[in-house]
C-alpha cells in the first residue's frame, strides 16, 4: 500500500523515513528549517489519514483538529495524503436562501450548502461571484443548529462585492465558495476557563459562531464579548446580546461605540485592557481589522496573556 500522497501524486517513502525527507527526495520544494519538530517551518496538512501524535506536538488544538502536522518528525504509520498549507481551498456550490440587513451597512447572508461542506463556527470562506470576484467572510452560524451558513457582509461605498450583494444578489441565486479556512474556532479551550471574545465591526460574525459553539459545548467559565463599532448603529446585535447577557449568568456583553460619549462609548481595545483581569488564565479570540488585532494581541501578551491562548483573525481590506 502507498503510504504517502502529496496533492494527488504518490510519493516513495522508505520505512522509518519522515515525510519531509521523502518530499525533498521527490524533489518537492517543501519549506523546512530545524528538522527537529520545533520551528514549524515544515508545517503541512493531512487531508486524508491521521498523522501520528508526535508529529503534532506543539501545535494548537485547532491546528491538530484540522490535520496539521510537522513533516520533519512525521513517520506515517498509516497512509497519509498531504498538502502544503497554502494550498487553494476546495470549491463548492451554494444557494442563497435569504439576505437581510443587520444595520445600515451590514448585510446578512444565508447560504444553503451541500453535504460536502463542513465547517467549524468562526472559520471563514471565500465568497466568489459569477464574475470571479472573491472576498473572505467569517462564518457566524453553527452547523449542528443552523441549516444554512450565515455571513455578515460589511457594505463599503463603491465596493465591488458590496454592490453585488446589495444590488444584484437575490434568494435562489447560485454562487461558489472556497473553504472553509482558518483555525480561529473553539478548540483547546477548557470549558471552565475564562473566555474573552473581542471584535470590531463584522468581526462580530466569527465571535457569534464561537460564542454559540462554546455554549453548545457546555462552556461554564465566564464569557465576555466585547464589540466595538464607530457609531452606536454599528453595534448591530446589541439587543439580542443584551438579552442573552440578562438570561445567562456567565455571559457579559460589553459594547463600545467609538464616537459615543459616556456609557457604552469609547475604544473597545481600551475597554478590554481595562476590564480583563485573569490574563494568564483566559482564552482570547480577537477578530477585526489589523490595527485592533495586532495591537491588542501584543498588549495582552505583554500584560501576561499566553500567546498560545490568543487566537485571532485579521480582516484585511480588499485590494
Amino acid at each position, binding site marked *: 500500500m502507498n503510504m504517502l500522497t502529496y496533492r494527488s501524486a504518490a510519493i516513495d517513502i522508505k520505512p522509518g523515513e519522515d515525510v519531509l525527507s521523502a518530499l525533498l527526495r521527490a524533489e518537492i520544494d517543501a519549506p523546512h*528549517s*530545524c*528538522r*527537529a*519538530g*520545533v*520551528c*514549524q*517551518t515544515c508545517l503541512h496538512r493531512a487531508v486524508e489519514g491521521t498523522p501520528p501524535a508526535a508529529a503534532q*506536538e*506543539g501545535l494548537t488544538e485547532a491546528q491538530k483538529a484540522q490535520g496539521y502536522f510537522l513533516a520533519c518528525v512525521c513517520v506515517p504509520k498509516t497512509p497519509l495524503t498531504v498538502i502544503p498549507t497554502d494550498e487553494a481551498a476546495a470549491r463548492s456550490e451554494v444557494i442563497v436562501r435569504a439576505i437581510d440587513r443587520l444595520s445600515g451597512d451590514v448585510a446578512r447572508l444565508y447560504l444553503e450548502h451541500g453535504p460536502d461542506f463542513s465547517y467549524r463556527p468562526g472559520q471563514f470562506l471565500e465568497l466568489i461571484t459569477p464574475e470571479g470576484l472573491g472576498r473572505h467572510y467569517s462564518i457566524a452560524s453553527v452547523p449542528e443548529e443552523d441549516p444554512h451558513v450565515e455571513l455578515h457582509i460589511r457594505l463599503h461605498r463603491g465596493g465591488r462585492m458590496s454592490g453585488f450583494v446589495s444590488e444584484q444578489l437575490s434568494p435562489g441565486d447560485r454562487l461558489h465558495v472556497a473553504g472553509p479556512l482558518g483555525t480561529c474556532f473553539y478548540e483547546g479551550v477548557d470549558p471552565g476557563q475564562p473566555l474573552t471574545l473581542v471584535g470590531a465591526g463584522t468581526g462580530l460574525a466569527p465571535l457569534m459562531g464561537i460564542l454559540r459553539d462554546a455554549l453548545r459545548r457546555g462552556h461554564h467559565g465566564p464569557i465576555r464579548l466585547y464589540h466595538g463599532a464607530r457609531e452606536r448603529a454599528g453595534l448591530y446585535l446589541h439587543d439580542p446580546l443584551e438579552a442573552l447577557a440578562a438570561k445567562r449568568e456567565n455571559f457579559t456583553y460589553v459594547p463600545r461605540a467609538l464616537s459615543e460619549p459616556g456609557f457604552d462609548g469609547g475604544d473597545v481595545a481600551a475597554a478590554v485592557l481595562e476590564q480583563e483581569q485573569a490574563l494568564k488564565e483566559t482564552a482570547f479570540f480577537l477578530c477585526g481589522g489589523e490595527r485592533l488585532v495586532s495591537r491588542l*494581541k*501584543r498588549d495582552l*501578551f*505583554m500584560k501576561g496573556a*499566553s*500567546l*498560545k491562548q490568543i487566537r485571532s483573525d485579521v480582516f484585511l481590506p480588499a485590494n
Partner: protein
Amino acid sequence: MPTLYERLGGAPAVDAAVDIFYRRVLADGRIARFFDNVNMEEQIAKQKAFLTMAFGGPNKYTGKDMREAHKKLVAKGLNDMHVDAVVENLSSTLRQLGVGEKDVLEVAALANSVRADVLNR
C-alpha cells in the same frame, strides 16, 4: 549524569520559558525595534527553536537559516550589543524560572555560539 536539556526540564521547560523570554525581548528598548511588524506566532515558533538549541536540546542546527533570517536586520544595524541584550534576557528568564547559575552560564555559552551566524560574519 543528565544532560543540560534534561536538567532544565526538556520540551515543557522550553514552553515555560518562551513566553517569558519573548515578553522580555519585546519590552527591551535596545532590541524591540527589530521585532516590529513580525508575526508573533511565527516568531514564538522560531524562539522555541532557538531556545531548544540553547538548552542543548535536539536540533540539527546548520547556521544557514540563522544567517538568512538576520541578514536584513544586520543591514538595519544589528550588532554585538543587540546579541548581548538577547543573551542577557535569556539569562534573566532562566533565573526567573529558578535555574541554577551554572546552567544559566552553560545556556548563555550555547546562545553565544551562534553569534557569528546571527551577525553574518
